[in-house]
């Protein structure tokens, strides 16, 4: 097998893994043709979050924060152990964000900075590539403290949330717009073709209904900047920022696969540098940096002289003209310690603020089955899978409402969508156990089991129709799904403006029965600011955030 064949295999591998990743996110949705199991629970037919479970950075960081490797995260060893022998093959062959960066970087450019000598120069190792190691150790520092911040920058969760909560909703809006424009022409053949194409596209790409996510702009800009940077520096993200790449770089230290450079054969044409993805100095005359190489094999495949070859146990010449490769990562011990200390300081800083405990937002309504906030922030990687799968579009990324530490973690916004009482999909897709998988019985409860509560409903009597406006309503009571209903009614004869007697039923809330699902808030006709609303108090996951004495959990 020639190296060009192997390089083509790498290209195929990139396409396959990218499509697989994308397909898994497409499948992270409640499809119409599901059928319930015998227990009545609706279970996703595929392990849609499996790609995230192969992420070694998630495994490492959650191990630091929680002391255990949750469920499927053991799969990450399938990536990590081969990396020890082969190097960062994941970055060049598998990582879907790496692939995307690769593609975007390689699209032809008219900018002179990306051509000829400048391009060669830009593909030599640069000091900024250390940043990713600093970030890795800063995240290790926050994780030792107990706050999992790596999800912000880990490529797999980052891409999952960017596709799931930014790209696909935008595609949805866009395709509806095109369809409506074409249907608006009123020309029958155009309409027929549009209808056909839209239905086909919708069947493959679009969920049952359009999702609208909170703070899509912050997620979108973040993702756009990462993608756009490729047009200035080839794979800027992979080279300089990616903490997963940094981790894999560290683990590739003893890799037995390496680049062998024959100084005698090289005529310094620099073609290797033109196509280098990792900026790892593949050319003869410089020190090859093992920890930076993505194993894309472009250098070997493009070398007309056969001076470069990847080999197991490569022979290392070490001369002044051709210094030997280095497996050392370009960051000193002192800076490692400094970064970890910095991470710990950031952790302490975050927790010294008020948002975590003493002034937690009442709107931090976590998905059903979520663990206590302390543990939640130790587990949530912000992959957005729960938001994507939620059939009611109830779960949304926060921006700063729940504190900086919790940015882009999921909360329910009941006005947009409520928590469907019999649904347990968010717990099924959570790869790290921030949302535990509930059985149907644990979710809705029965005579022996308490239901899972995510908050409690409160009335704004100044906005409620029967309370404030002498008008019948009780939609909240109608929608209340508990049995008996947590919302109960009391008849009251009130007088309208003209002095006529009007019989209204006034709603009251029984906090012993309310699960905080938000159906009442969703259904309340006082559209812009609901007369009944949920806050997090009473949530099952918290020992402290309770109202009633009788609902305090036994410690």
């Amino acid at each position, binding site marked *: 097998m020639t190296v060009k064949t192997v390089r083509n295999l790498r290209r195929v591998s990139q396409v396959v893994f990218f499509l697989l990743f994308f397909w898994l996110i497409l499948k992270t949705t409640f499809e119409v043709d599901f059928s319930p199991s015998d227990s009545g629970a609706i279970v996703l037919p595929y392990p849609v979050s499996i790609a995230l479970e192969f992420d070694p950075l998630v495994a490492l960081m959650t191990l630091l924060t929680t002391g255990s490797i949750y469920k499927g995260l053991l799969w990450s060893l399938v990536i990590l152990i081969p990396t020890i022998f082969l190097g960062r093959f994941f970055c060049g062959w598998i990582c879907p964000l790496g692939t995307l960066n690769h593609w975007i970087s390689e699209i032809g450019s008219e900018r002179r900075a990306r051509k000829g000598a400048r391009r060669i120069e830009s593909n030599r190792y640069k000091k900024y590539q250390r940043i990713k190691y600093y970030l890795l150790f800063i995240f290790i520092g926050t994780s030792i403290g107990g706050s999992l911040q790596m999800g912000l920058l880990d490529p797999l969760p980052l891409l999952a949330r960017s596709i799931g909560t930014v790209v696909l909703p935008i595609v949805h809006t866009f395709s509806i717009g095109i369809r409506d424009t074409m249907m608006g022409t009123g020309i029958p053949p155009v309409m027929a073709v549009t209808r056909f194409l839209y239905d086909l596209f919708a069947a493959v790409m679009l969920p*049952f209904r359009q999702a609208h996510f909170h703070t899509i702009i912050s997620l979108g800009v973040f993702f756009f900047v990462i993608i756009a940077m490729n047009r200035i520096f080839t794979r800027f993200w992979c080279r300089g920022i990616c903490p997963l790449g940094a981790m894999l770089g560290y683990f590739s230290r003893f890799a037995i696969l390496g680049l062998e450079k024959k100084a005698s054969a090289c005529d310094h044409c620099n073609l290797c540098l033109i196509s280098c993805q990792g900026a790892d100095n593949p050319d003869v005359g410089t020190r090859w940096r093992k920890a930076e190489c993505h194993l894309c094999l472009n250098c070997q495949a493009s070398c007309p002289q056969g001076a470069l070859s990847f080999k197991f146990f490569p022979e290392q010449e070490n001369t002044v003209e051709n210094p030997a490769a280095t497996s050392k990562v370009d960051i000193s011990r002192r800076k490692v310690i400094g970064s970890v200390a910095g991470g710990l300081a950031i952790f302490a800083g975050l927790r010294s603020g008020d948002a975590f405990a003493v002034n937690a937002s009442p709107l931090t309504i976590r998905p059903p089955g979520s663990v206590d906030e302390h543990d939640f922030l130790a587990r949530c990687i912000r992959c957005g899978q729960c938001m994507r799968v939620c059939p009611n579009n109830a779960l949304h990324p926060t921006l700063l409402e729940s504190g900086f530490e919790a940015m882009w973690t999921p909360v329910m916004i009941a006005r947009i969508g409520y928590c469907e009482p019999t649904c347990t999909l968010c717990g099924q897709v959570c790869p790290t156990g921030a949302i535990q998988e509930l059985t149907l019985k644990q979710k809705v409860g029965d005579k022996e089991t308490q239901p899972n509560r995510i908050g409690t409903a409160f009335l704004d009597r100044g906005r409620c129709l029967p309370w404030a406006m002498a008008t019948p309503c009780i939609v909240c009571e109608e929608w209340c799904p508990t049995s008996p*209903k947590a919302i109960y009614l009391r008849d009251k004869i009130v007088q309208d403006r003209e002095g006529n007697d009007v019989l209204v039923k006034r709603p009251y809330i029984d906090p012993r029965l309310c699960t905080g699902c938000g159906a009442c808030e969703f259904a309340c006709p006082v559209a812009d600011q609901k007369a009944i609303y949920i806050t997090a108090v009473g949530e099952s996951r918290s020992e402290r955030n309770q109202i009633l004495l009788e609902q305090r959990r036994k410690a």
Partner: protein
Amino acid sequence: MKRREFLQQGGKALALATVTGATGLLFHNSNSGSYTAVLERSTSFEVPPDKSFPGIALARQDDPIATLNSALDAVGGIKRFVKPGEKVTVKPNVGWDRAPEQAANTNPILVGEMVRLCYEAGASEVVVTDVTCNDPRRCFLRSGIREAAEKAGAKVILPVEEDYIKVNMGGKLLTAWPVLRYFIETDRMINMPIVKQHSLSICTLGMKNLYGILGGRRNQLHQRIDQSIVDLASFCRPTLTVADATRVLHRGGPQGGSLDDVTIENSVICSTDQVALDARACEFLGLSGDLVSHIALAQASGLGTVDYESIGYKEIVL
């Protein structure tokens, strides 16, 4: 500047100015606000009255399929209501994400059988749909209605945004509302409510079940629930109403949840008179038609009669 240049540049500027001005005038709209075209439609799917059959029939048997057939045959049989080649929309109550035993949604066995009967009578297409409250995927799934209806060959529609047509309903209260098009673009409509309690309208029966043809902000209808139900029932006149009283939900309606709130009644009522049907059906909840305000208002509005015996009432009990 040369004359040629002056003419060229001046001419171009003039042309651009003309186009700009013309565009402004062309698209100028002196009306403020937007206007959405609405369809003027009344939707009567009724068949001509036939005095040789009783106006309302109730059957009580153990087997729901046999019960439906007995009640239906008593009022004339399916062939009286569905003619060969007609499109039929069946509207069960699929409001909530509840299992059949919880009696919040119409019994799926009855829905399946009704679809089968429509095809047997020669219907060209039978659509089963409802505008659900909870997520339609879950409602249609857990209620068992999607499965039962599809097995019988029906086209089950889970409504999406583009399925609605804005219609002028011509009611006292309900004017322009989005209506699911399957309740307009059809020849026959069979309403299949389940009998259950409701805190505001007292009971959810045939006429209240018609809420499910509407989209939009239905939650406002509660503010004048009696008049909105009557407006709906005057706008949409089903070919036949088939009330499912195999299970009856007495408390915690319209969603229920607890099986303690459900009684087994094994009954089905068929009628061409929506008011009479509701008047008979509400007796399962210990009510009387003239005391339920929306049923009484429907009679006063001339939609039918509360005195169901006056139109011929037949009871088949095995």
